[in-house]
């Protein structure tokens, strides 16, 4: 009995609402058709485009799933938890690339988040407007640089610097930690994390800036009126109320770091092994696909790459959804603050 009632409920409710809605739509539609054929045509085109996007999204997911089937059937749940990646024997485990993706993105967020939030706070609250405009523009310009250029810069400038100065210094001072031990190659996990940090800075920065700007002036004035210093005002009024939005900005940056391919592939050293040292080469989900897809001939090999693609698709989908929810919620909270 319970089952049927549960099943009936959603049938009844959407029915009533949908008839109400279509009734409304019908009315407006007839009005439009009376006025202009062009309007109706345009609305149709827009609807087609909008639904096309959704169809596209689902078909990408379906395509990946379909291609990945042989690998899903062969490796099952072992796939994300084993670490052999051997195209010759057709044995595939995704653990090293998942590890590489997580660690490189984590390094990137660890560096980029404080940096971009600091810059955003400085440019919205401290710097004179003129400087603020120029600097904002420059930081946002970082997003316009193609990732292959970042990669080249990584190989030719960053990696040699890391190998000659940064990594030996880290090894000397913090070498007792497993993260900073082992041979120094220049290219590797650390280089990938640093490149990613630079690449996601504009994303985190520009959204944080928007969120800070959305904080109502009344909140800031209230803090100042109560005798807060400038730093206390930023802490109490801005950072506190912008917390959710800034968190969203960081996650959005994370989403970009997870999926970044070209620059990472060029500097990470591409070795499907798990090593505690950040100096060691690694491999990410996106980079293994970019590396091996073009020449993969074995059916299982192709399927394993598609399965990694599918996993990446879902992870970035979820991360981006979360981020947008946080940013939206943050902005809404602040605008509510403004009204009260």
């Amino acid at each position: 009995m319970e089952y049927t009632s549960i099943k009936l409920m959603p049938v009844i409710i959407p029915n009533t609402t949908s008839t109400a809605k279509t009734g409304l739509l019908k009315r407006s539609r007839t009005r439009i058709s009376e006025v202009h054929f062009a309007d109706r045509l345009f609305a149709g085109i827009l609807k087609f485009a909008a639904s096309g996007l959704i169809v596209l999204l689902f078909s990408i997911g379906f395509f990946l799933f379909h291609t990945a089937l042989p690998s899903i059937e062969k490796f099952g749940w072992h796939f994300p938890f084993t670490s052999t990646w051997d195209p010759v024997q057709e044995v595939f485990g995704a653990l090293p690339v998942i590890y590489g993706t997580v660690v490189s993105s984590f390094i990137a967020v660890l560096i980029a988040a404080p940096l971009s939030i600091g810059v955003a706070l400085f440019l919205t609250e401290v710097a004179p407007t003129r400087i603020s405009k120029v600097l904002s523009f420059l930081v946002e310009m970082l997003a316009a640089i193609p990732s292959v250029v970042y990669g080249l810069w990584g190989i030719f400038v960053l990696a040699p610097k890391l190998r000659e100065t940064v990594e030996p210094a880290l090894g000397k001072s913090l070498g007792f930690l497993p993260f900073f031990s082992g041979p120094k190659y220049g290219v590797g996990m650390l280089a990938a994390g640093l490149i990613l940090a630079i690449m996601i800075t504009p994303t985190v920065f520009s959204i944080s800036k928007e969120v800070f700007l959305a904080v109502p002036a009344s909140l800031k004035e209230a803090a100042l009126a109560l005798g807060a210093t400038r730093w206390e005002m930023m802490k109490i009024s801005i950072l506190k109320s912008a917390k959710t939005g800034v968190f969203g900005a960081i996650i959005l940056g994370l989403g970009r770091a997870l999926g970044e391919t070209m620059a990472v592939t060029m500097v990470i050293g591409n070795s499907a092994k798990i090593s505690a040292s950040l100096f060691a080469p690694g491999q990410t989900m996106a980079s293994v696909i970019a590396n091996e897809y073009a020449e993969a001939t074995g059916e299982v090999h192709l399927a394993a790459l598609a399965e990694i693609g599918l996993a990446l698709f879902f992870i970035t989908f979820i991360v981006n959804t979360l981020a947008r929810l946080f940013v939206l919620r943050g902005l809404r909270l602040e605008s509510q603050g403004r009204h009260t």
Partner: protein
Amino acid sequence: MAGLKCRWIISFYSVNFVLNSVAGGLVFGALETSLKADTVATTLINGAGATFPFPLYSKWFFEYQKENPEVQINYQSIGSGGGIRQFLQETVDFGATDLPMSDAQLTKSKKSVLHIPTVLGATVITYNLPNASKESTPSALKLSPDVVADIFLGTLSNWNDSRIKKLNPTISFPSDLSIIVARRSDGSGTTAIFTDYLSKISSEWKQKVGMGTSVNWPAGLGGKGNEGVSGIIKHTPGAIGYIELTYAESTHLPYASIQNKAGNFVLPNLKSVTAAAEAFSNQLPDDFRLSITNPDGPNAYPISAFTYFLVYQTLQSTKGEKIVKFLKWAVTHGQKYAEKLYYAPLPPSLVRKVEAKIGKINIQP
């Protein structure tokens, strides 16, 4: 750069071809009155595959189109694996691959497949030794098969190793410098040729790693493409890796001479690569699918390979005739363009065999 330019021109032609057939040549015909292509009915031939011979292939298409304006060849260098896939799905008229198709792949094809060898290419071992290159000629480093295998297995990992010193008494090696292996991270025919060689000279390699376009490397850093590997080598003292001869020549990287089966140290060049092909001329199977790494000849360079066009045994009439004509041109007239781009031309004896093979292609009316 020349390759890029040619590719542009090729794609430009093909776009124009499509537009011409759609617009009846009315709109775009005016733009290219100087091109003969406009007045003759053109045949578009599509190909896809190997990147390794692409510089030569684009030169071929360019020259061939100058001579035969009625044919437009559009080639996408998407890699051997992609070339084989597209060829099997019959979305292209011919494929191109550095590795001959495996028996398993051949059984997937409903039609009978022909391998047409086009040229030969060498894979070289290049390195970055800060002291050595100053004191001696850049190509002086000598390596024996066991040393090469142990370096890439990761078991020989310092330049001060006595075995390396013994092979190279004239070079003063740094007292303590780690050997850093650089290899391709992307699947590639070059990797297949190199791992094929390693599998032949080292049973340990064959057992642990094997051969393929991507393998589970026991050691080293992966760079994407020839440019990625040479980037790592150029900027990492102590690095060693493998790239195509063409690429080593154009980037002026030093390369090692390698001890061949006869015991001689041989540098990769057109002669030693052709010698490798000649060493196998008696064992060459009828379908030309043969690995020529680790050859017998006294002057043969041990790491080289054929690169192939793939076509079906039976082709459709008009287009098929054009393809056959082009293939014949490529293995005869086309060979003269190979040397300048550091590919070794096919030995003359082989050219005759390949020509005979092309002659056997059936044209379906």
